[in-house]
């Protein structure tokens, strides 16, 4: 049989067009293609040329939209995007099994790592000094494995692996060789900041060592948001699992609390970090990102909250009551506003003109700045009276780092609303600012203990 190159080309185009339709699986397209081939062949034999035969055959197949609609009503499950974990016949697997086993392997390794110290006489539910050991080293039970997973997934070479090992080694040395005492402020601050510092280091592996690229940084920001949401969801599921474990064994008179606390909980907490990371990677082009959806939902609500708060504060001439928690609370508020800003940026089409949501976003950032300035002012007067402490300096530093970011974001956003600046400049500012967090986290981990003499 002679080949009909032109017809084959037409059918090839038709096939790739059909494959883009979500309700049609590749086997359905294959079946329809067989029909199209047979039909065109019959038409060719009846004397039509290749173009004509193809056109008539496609016409007879019917309107593609109503056809896909028909398939959709037949397979209603296909309308819901599925993160398919099992491979159906003929369907492209969305999850690569090598990737999945690597992720599970790393999760198991992390779980093993957190149980390892017990072999050396440091039980996880032991004395206070044991708890201090786990708290100091919490990052090292899990983040190296997440980093290793991405190093493997991105196929990075030995040199990049060694470069990434540097912050981890530095962190390990600081946390275990610096003479921190239990309940020392600088030690506690280092414990809180090291995970942030190392999380940003994992971004190096995530971005295939292209950490300078703005797009890659934005991708890591998106990953972080989705990862957090997945981690919280998995955590909720884990809570239910542990609750039932205790409950059903209690029913037959056995106490499972120890097993839950010493095994399920710690292993789950570290394993879920890797599993969430893997899930987010696997689903990123199948399921819509959740963080921007939450952002859209909460930006208006937080804007209203802050406007009302400011109005009441000014109306009643209240002054913010300065305690240590207040400082931290307002830090968290800034982090939250920054998060809302980041995740709306991450999902926004930079070319779109300013809309009502942009006005809201701008208002939110502006109000947060005002609230924070009130807080900072109150804090400043207190610090000038009572002097510095590691906690105050850390909180103050964080406040300033965030304040600078949000302040300048506000300026850019205003420019964007007045159409003097492009939205991309806001995106660039955010991604360009990321190293500042990294450097600040390392300052708190590395410099604070030395400067404040391990207080």
């Amino acid at each position, binding site marked *: *049989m002679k080949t009909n190159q032109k017809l084959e080309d037409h059918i090839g185009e038709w096939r790739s067009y059909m494959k883009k339709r979500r309700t049609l699986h590749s*086997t*359905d397209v*294959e*079946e*329809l293609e*067989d*029909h199209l*081939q*047979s*039909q065109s062949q019959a038409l060719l034999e009846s004397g039509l040329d290749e173009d004509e035969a193809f056109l008539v055959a496609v016409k*007879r*197949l*019917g*309107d*593609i939209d*109503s*056809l896909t609609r*028909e*398939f959709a*009503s*037949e*397979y209603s499950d296909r309308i819901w995007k599925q993160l398919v974990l099992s491979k159906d016949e003929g369907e492209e697997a969305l999850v690569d099994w090598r990737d999945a086993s690597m992720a599970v392997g790393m999760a198991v390794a992390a779980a093993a790592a957190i149980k390892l110290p017990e072999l050396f006489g440091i039980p996880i539910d032991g004395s206070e000094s044991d708890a201090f050991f786990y708290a100091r080293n919490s990052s090292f039970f899990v983040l190296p494995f997440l980093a290793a997973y991405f190093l493997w997934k991105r196929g990075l070479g030995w040199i990049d692996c060694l470069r990434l090992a540097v912050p981890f080694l530095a962190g390990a040395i600081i946390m275990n060789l610096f003479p921190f005492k239990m309940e020392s402020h600088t030690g506690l601050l280092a414990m809180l900041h090291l995970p942030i510092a190392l999380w940003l280091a994992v971004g190096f592996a995530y971005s295939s060592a292209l950490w300078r690229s703005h797009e890659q940084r934005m991708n890591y920001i998106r990953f972080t948001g989705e990862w957090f949401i997945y981690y919280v969801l998995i955590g909720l599921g884990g809570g239910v699992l542990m609750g039932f474990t205790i409950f059903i064994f209690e029913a037959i008179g056995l106490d499972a609390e120890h097993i839950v606390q010493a095994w399920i909980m710690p292993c789950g907490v570290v394993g879920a970090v890797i599993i969430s990371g893997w899930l987010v990677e696997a689903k990123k082009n199948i399921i819509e990102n959740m963080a921007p959806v939450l952002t859209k939902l909460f930006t208006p609500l937080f804007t209203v909250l802050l406007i009302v708060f400011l109005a009441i504060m000014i109306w009643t001439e209240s002054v913010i009551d300065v305690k240590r928690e207040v400082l931290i609370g307002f830090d968290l508020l800034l982090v939250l506003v920054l998060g809302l800003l980041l995740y709306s940026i991450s999902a926004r089409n930079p070319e779109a003109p300013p809309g009502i949501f942009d006005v809201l976003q701008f208002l939110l950032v502006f109000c947060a700045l005002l609230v924070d300035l009130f807080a900072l002012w109150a804090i400043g007067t207190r610090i000038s009276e009572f002097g510095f402490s590691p906690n105050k300096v850390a909180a103050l530093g964080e406040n300033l780092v965030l304040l600078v970011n949000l302040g300048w974001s506000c300026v850019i956003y205003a420019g964007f609303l007045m159409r003097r600046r492009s939205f991309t400049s806001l995106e660039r500012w955010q991604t360009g600012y990321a190293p500042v967090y990294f450097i600040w986290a390392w300052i708190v981990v590395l410099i604070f203990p030395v400067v404040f003499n391990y207080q």
Partner: protein
Amino acid sequence: MDINKDLVAASATPLVLAILNEGENYGYAIQKRVNDLSGGELEWADGMLYPLLHRLERNGYIESSWGKSETGRRRKYYKLNDQGRKEITNQKRQWQVVESALRGIRLAAVDLAPQKI
């Protein structure tokens, strides 16, 4: 003659089942058979046959398997199973009821016709 769309849709299932009762077959050939049987009067968009075949398979009347066409392309074949044969009898009975009812009214119309003049 344009056959009503609902009627075409309603007749599709018994037709396809009856064609498969003749033996294992695939989409394009089933379509051609329908065309031949109806003298080209029963026409539906070719593509619509496939969602129908899939529905029949899901309902458990037919089974599918992948084979090869004469040119070596992958081709999906359909085969009637026992439940499908039962369904044919069932459908046949339904159509007989419709048919005899229609015939009854036609005969009655013939009887009435002379009195009207």
